[in-house]
């Protein structure tokens, strides 16, 4: 995928890690009853009466969560790097806030069925305005294709409504960032879906999923997340 910095193929276990995490989370959900049944992001956090989510939907929601965590961490780190200014800075702050809201809402509906937040290492991309923009384009286009690829697989109409609602927001993000990069905001007259396998392969190839936290400072060790 053009625009992504050259990543190295990590141990290749990332997609498997995600799959294992999802299987574990789905099983917990199946046993304990993850909550579904929300028609939109706000309603996702409002949590009406508990409705058992299908194992299928829990897996889809966790997949969405993993992508939102990736985007959220990316924008958050970019904002904190203070390397972005002007319209790019505004985009990072605004889109980051939305992706963080998506993470929060998805975690709320999944409850204990949610996968653990992955660790990320963006390898300096968040500190370089040009690399940041190109990677943001790739992420947003990928998110659109990912949600599109799952839409027809969702069981619960309420989960579908939420996913479809987020799907078009990611498309707005994609167009916005493309405009800032100076490339056409649309890819074609029709946007194509990507399968989960394809998406996870692309994510794995970036090398951004880290196996362990990266210490940010020596004085007060923190984690890039």
């Amino acid at each position: 995928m053009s625009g992504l910095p050259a990543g190295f193929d990590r141990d290749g276990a990332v997609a498997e890690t995600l799959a294992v995490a999802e299987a574990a989370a789905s099983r917990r959900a199946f046993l304990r009853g993850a909550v579904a049944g929300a028609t939109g992001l706000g309603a996702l956090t409002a949590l009406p009466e508990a409705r058992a989510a299908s194992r299928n939907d829990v897996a889809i929601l966790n997949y969405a969560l993993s992508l939102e965590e990736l985007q959220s961490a990316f924008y958050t780190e970019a904002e904190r790097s203070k390397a972005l200014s002007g319209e790019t800075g505004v985009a990072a702050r605004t889109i980051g806030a939305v992706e963080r809201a998506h993470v929060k809402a998805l975690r709320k509906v999944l409850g204990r069925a949610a996968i653990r937040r992955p660790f990320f290492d963006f390898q300096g991309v968040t500190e370089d305005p040009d690399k940041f923009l190109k990677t943001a384009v790739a992420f947003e286009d990928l998110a659109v294709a990912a949600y599109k690829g799952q839409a027809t697989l969702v069981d619960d109409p309420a989960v579908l409504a939420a996913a479809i609602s987020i799907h078009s927001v990611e498309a707005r993000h994609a167009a916005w960032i493309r405009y800032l990069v100076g490339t056409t905001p649309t890819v074609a007259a029709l946007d194509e879906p990507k399968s989960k396998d394809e998406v996870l392969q692309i994510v794995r190839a970036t090398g951004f999923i880290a196996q362990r936290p990266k210490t940010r400072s020596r004085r007060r060790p923190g984690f890039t997340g």
Partner: protein
Amino acid sequence: MGGTDEHVAAAPGGMPRRRLLGLGFAAGGAALAAGWGLAGPAPSLAAPSPAQDAEILGFALGLEDLQETFYRQAAASSVLPAGDLRDFVETVREHETAHASYLRTLLGAGAPAPAAFTFTTELASPESIASTAILLEDLAVRAYNGQAGNLTTAALAEAAKVVSVDARHAAWIRSIVGQPPASEPTDPGVTAADVTATLTKAGLG
């Protein structure tokens, strides 16, 4: 035991899962939407079916035809300056033409013919062209989103390819005129009645 887990199993005859669920969930979906409706007051019309798909996609085609007409007339307008706005109008015109054609092909012989419409005040200035584009693109996105749950999986797959492009259009034109391209975390769907009401109020319905 998970209440909906039994729906996960493949149905006899390989019926698509969501079509099967639609039969049982139609009323439930409406109750959900009515109770929590942030994704939009989009009650199930009935269980998804090819006949209902045709009604919904026929309605969507009306919106695509309206957009195509708008951009065609805007492109021919003398007030459209060269530059970003013209690039947008000409590119999006091609897209909306493709969207209308795509839906017509899906609908086959039953596809409604495009209604004739002449835009007037909407084409008075670059500003009015931009604001009309924003209105129409946002409306299309919310119309599709509002109907997602009423479509069969086959029709949903097709509609999904179109709606994200309209969403890109909406953010694009906002970027051009300096409005926040995407400040909301969700794009709640609206009903067909809402769409008609919005168009009527704008003098376009």
